[in-house]
């Protein structure tokens, strides 16, 4: 699988390292999908160090996020909230059919008083349902909507395929010129694995079905383009990559990228769907260019569902051969990804387990006339986890083994200790050892039954050298840390400030973090959980350099050399001396009006890579109604140095909530005959709400590695653990998400009938 980061271990660096340099393997996000590449870095393990964890004051502690007061009072300005003088509000018209040639008459829209501009989007060819085909700007959003309604669209409709079944049928309309069903894997010879399966004493076989999920970010996609003519523009964008905006925007505005400043002060969720301008951002630019006035274009909710990405669904046909000793002997799968007009992220099967046995995977995709899938938190992994962990439980029950023991046997040697430690901890927290059904599901006739399930994750989470960070110390003692990076709600802004404050012996409030602006130092886009491991080491380096530069300036005043100095709370002093000290403010006064500025870049030794993570769920199943209630979820996660324990727990629990939601509720529903997306709203596309939340426990294993991103790992195993817990509770194996009551009742019926 090309997108599997752990599969490229044997790659060699491109050439021998230059003098004073060494090669490290780093994760880079390309459109949110993490790929591993070699990067040459300075070979010095000295310099900035995280230092002893026990002595940390702000890092690795529970530090409330610095923008909290802004967010709880409504002061925080998101892209949706930007209001500029003379600003026009815009909205889009979506194609109401999946495939067509469209001709538009915009004249009626333009006649409406208050409508300022109406433009066509695209080239008149529609290949997927809901593609934005026109945009209208007006003095109010209400009038812009009137404008959209007044557009006359004439569709020359073409046959379409909305579902994989339609697309794979004989004589299906062509969605992709290379064919609707495309085989992506190279190896076609399964004979060896077929033989190994044949020879296995126990075999488990099944087909897993995974629906298309939507990112459903609360802040929709879009931008506010502040262009008033001339040679400069500012683009406020709801994006996961500050630096992904200017090049696209400049193209549409007829400017050079360095004439366009991108701003991302706060952003309301991305989860992998927000890189670059998108059709909606480009439309905002075109309208602003035409009007020479600011344009606000944020998608409405229905457009967001239709045209702002999704997590690819799929189908996994799996066959596993197991020995009587519980060892998996052979694994065969056919993966079919459903990514709309795109091919979808790879679903890396076999997932974690059974990788060094006879393995054959055929990887295919089926194209439909639906919006392209995009990366979504842990691209491909939650899908692979669902079928793999389900199949693992089925195998364990088939050979009559404890679920954890079966996993122990089939984990890769190098990871066994890690995962078993995490699984055992989950088992202890959720009461597995006292649970009455550890080797077989509960088949009693109790009305409400309780079950437990487990699943694990893996992710890279490493960093790379795309960040440039500046720390400024002013003569009056104020300190700023600047980076163009974006805070998606992960706590980026807070750790920027806390790392610098920690290094300089200051209180958190004494350091101001300024981020989310493309005029600040470059930073990577937030994809593949690569932000923290890239940015935090760079911030640390800048802070370290700032401290050393300050010591140089202050040393004469203390009659010492720079190397003798150290920081203490609010002051700088000669190490080991009680009297030779200078208060922070006085120390900074020696800097003169220019103050001091220090730069930082990525330090490979301050980051780590490669994490696991285990989760367990306890559910109750009402066998009369089929209702599932998740009672409890626990997670144990490694992630190197935890930058902020408060934000990290939020992040981990947030991932668990999202996977609960994925497992129990989420599914895009289309009408294949009428060509409609039936649940493009929050009433019919349900996501987890307050009353769906179980008791939760999220624990971190501290390990001595540097910073590692863990947000993706958090979302990978939860729904699989829930599906396994349902099976453990009542014997119904659901191989299709969402795990709804109707499927459970049908499963119970089938069990009864034997």
């Amino acid at each position: 699988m090309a997108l599997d980061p752990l599969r490229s271990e044997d790659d060699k660096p491109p050439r021998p390292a230059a003098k004073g340099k060494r090669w490290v393997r780093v994760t880079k996000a390309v459109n949110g999908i993490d790929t591993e590449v070699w990067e040459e870095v300075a070979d010095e393990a000295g310099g900035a160090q995280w230092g002893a964890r026990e002595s940390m004051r702000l890092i690795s502690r529970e530090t409330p996020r610095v923008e909290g007061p802004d967010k709880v009072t409504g002061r925080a300005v998101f892209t949706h909230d930007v209001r500029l003088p003379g600003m026009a509000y815009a909205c889009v018209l979506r194609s109401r059919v999946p495939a067509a040639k469209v001709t538009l008459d915009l004249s009626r829209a333009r006649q409406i008083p208050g409508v300022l501009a109406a433009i066509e989007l695209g080239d008149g060819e529609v290949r997927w349902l809901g593609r934005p085909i026109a945009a209208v700007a007006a003095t109010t959003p209400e009038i812009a909507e009137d404008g959209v309604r007044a557009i006359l669209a004439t569709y020359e409709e073409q046959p379409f395929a909305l579902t994989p079944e339609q697309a794979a049928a004989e004589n299906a309309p062509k969605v992709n010129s290379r064919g609707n069903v495309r085989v992506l894997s190279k190896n076609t010879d399964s004979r060896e694995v077929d033989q190994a399966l044949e020879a296995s004493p126990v075999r488990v076989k099944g087909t897993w079905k995974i629906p298309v999920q939507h990112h459903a970010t609360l802040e929709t996609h879009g931008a506010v383009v502040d262009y008033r003519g001339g040679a400069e523009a500012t683009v406020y964008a709801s994006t996961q990559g500050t630096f992904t905006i200017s090049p696209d925007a400049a193209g549409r505005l007829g400017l050079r990228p360095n004439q366009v400043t991108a701003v991302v002060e706060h952003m309301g969720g991305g989860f992998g769907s927000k890189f670059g301008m998108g059709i909606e951002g480009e439309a905002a630019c075109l309208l602003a260019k035409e009007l020479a006035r600011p344009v606000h274009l944020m998608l409405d909710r229905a457009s967001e569902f239709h045209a702002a990405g999704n997590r690819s669904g799929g189908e996994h046909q799996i066959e596993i051969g197991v020995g009587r000793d519980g060892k998996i002997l052979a694994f065969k799968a056919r993966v079919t990804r459903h990514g709309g007009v795109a091919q979808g992220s790879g679903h890396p099967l076999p997932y974690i387990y059974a990788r060094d046995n006879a393995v054959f995977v055929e990887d295919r995709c089926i194209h439909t006339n639906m919006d392209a899938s995009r990366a979504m938190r842990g691209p491909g992994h939650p899908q692979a986890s669902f079928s793999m962990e389900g199949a693992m439980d089925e195998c364990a029950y088939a050979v009559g083994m404890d679920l954890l023991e079966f996993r122990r046997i089939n984990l890769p040697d190098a990871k066994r200790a890690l995962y078993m430690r995490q699984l055992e901890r989950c088992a202890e927290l959720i009461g597995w050892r006292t649970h009455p059904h550890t080797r077989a599901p509960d088949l009693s006739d109790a009305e409400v039954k309780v079950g437990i399930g487990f699943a694990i994750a893996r992710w890279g989470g490493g960093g790379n050298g795309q960040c440039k960070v500046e720390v400024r110390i002013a003569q009056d003692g104020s300190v700023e840390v600047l980076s163009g990076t974006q805070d998606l709600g992960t706590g980026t802004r807070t750790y920027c400030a806390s790392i610098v404050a920690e290094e300089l012996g200051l209180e958190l409030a004494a350091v101001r973090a300024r981020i989310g602006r493309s005029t600040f130092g470059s930073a990577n886009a937030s994809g593949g959980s690569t932000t923290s491991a890239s940015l935090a080491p760079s911030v640390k380096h800048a802070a370290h350099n700032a401290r050393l530069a300050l010591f140089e300036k202050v040393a004469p005043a203390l009659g010492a050399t720079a190397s003798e100095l150290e920081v203490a709370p609010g002051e700088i002093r000669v190490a080991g001396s009680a009297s030779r000290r200078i208060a922070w403010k006085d120390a900074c006064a020696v800097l003169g009006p220019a103050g001091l500025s220090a730069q930082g870049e990525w330090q490979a030794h301050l980051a780590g890579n490669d994490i696991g993570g285990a989760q367990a769920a306890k559910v109750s199943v009402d066998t009369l109604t089929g209702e599932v209630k998740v009672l409890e979820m626990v997670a144990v996660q490694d992630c190197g140095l935890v930058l902020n324990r408060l934000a990290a727990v939020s992040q981990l629990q947030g991932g668990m909530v999202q996977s609960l939601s994925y497992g129990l509720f989420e599914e895009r529903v289309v009408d294949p005959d009428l060509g409609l997306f039936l649940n493009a709203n929050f009433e019919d596309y349900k996501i987890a709400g307050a009353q769906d939340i179980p008791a939760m426990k999220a624990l971190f294993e501290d390990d001595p590695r540097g910073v590692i991103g863990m947000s993706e790992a958090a979302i990978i195993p939860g729904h699989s653990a829930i599906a396994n817990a349902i099976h453990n509770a009542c014997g119904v194996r659901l191989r299709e998400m969402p795990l709804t009551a109707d499927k459970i009742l049908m499963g119970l019926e089938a069990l009864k009938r034997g």
Partner: protein
Amino acid sequence: MSDATSPHDAASREPSLSRRSFFKGAGVVAAGGLVGEAVHAAARGASLEPVRMEGTVEIELEINGARTKVAVEPRTTLLNTLRNHCAPPLTGAKLVCDRGSCGACTVHLDGAPVYSCMTLAVDAVGRKITTIEGLASPGELTELQSAFCAHDGTMCGFCTPGFVMSISACLENDPSASLDEIQRSCSGNLCRCGTYPQVFEAALDAGRKLRAKGGR
């Protein structure tokens, strides 16, 4: 969430306006003609009969204790009025679904939480509107707001104003609200980042603090 915006409720308090007639008005607009008639005076008359309004109307709203004049179309929601027609703009309430299914736009009308995307601005005339910006005195935080910060009840923060408004109405009613009651009070709010566990902790903690202070 109680829906204080149904025409019946509104009619019992204030002369109200049939929503259908607004949408009719909108239809006229869509067809390309605007009838520029300011008829808000009729809206404030004593009659309980439905009132037809068209074009732009000038109304006075009481927002966060201050009287504010705005000129809006009768079909303009309270949410869009707050966000687009007030100076300075009150953008704390968020537009997420625009149809009453996410709670991000929650404000208080006479102390009760409502979806401001499901409330017309003209229906809010004569009622006390409180938005997230006006919940605490300037420069201060309510117990609940502080607890949200301390317990990390916010991640991306887009849903946060809505949750704060829903739960603060609940705690205002009953500072000893149970976890179950708190969950119910924000069951009309969605959070995609999954902050729920921290939000509940914050709410319970704020309740404790409010009780210790004796009331608010």
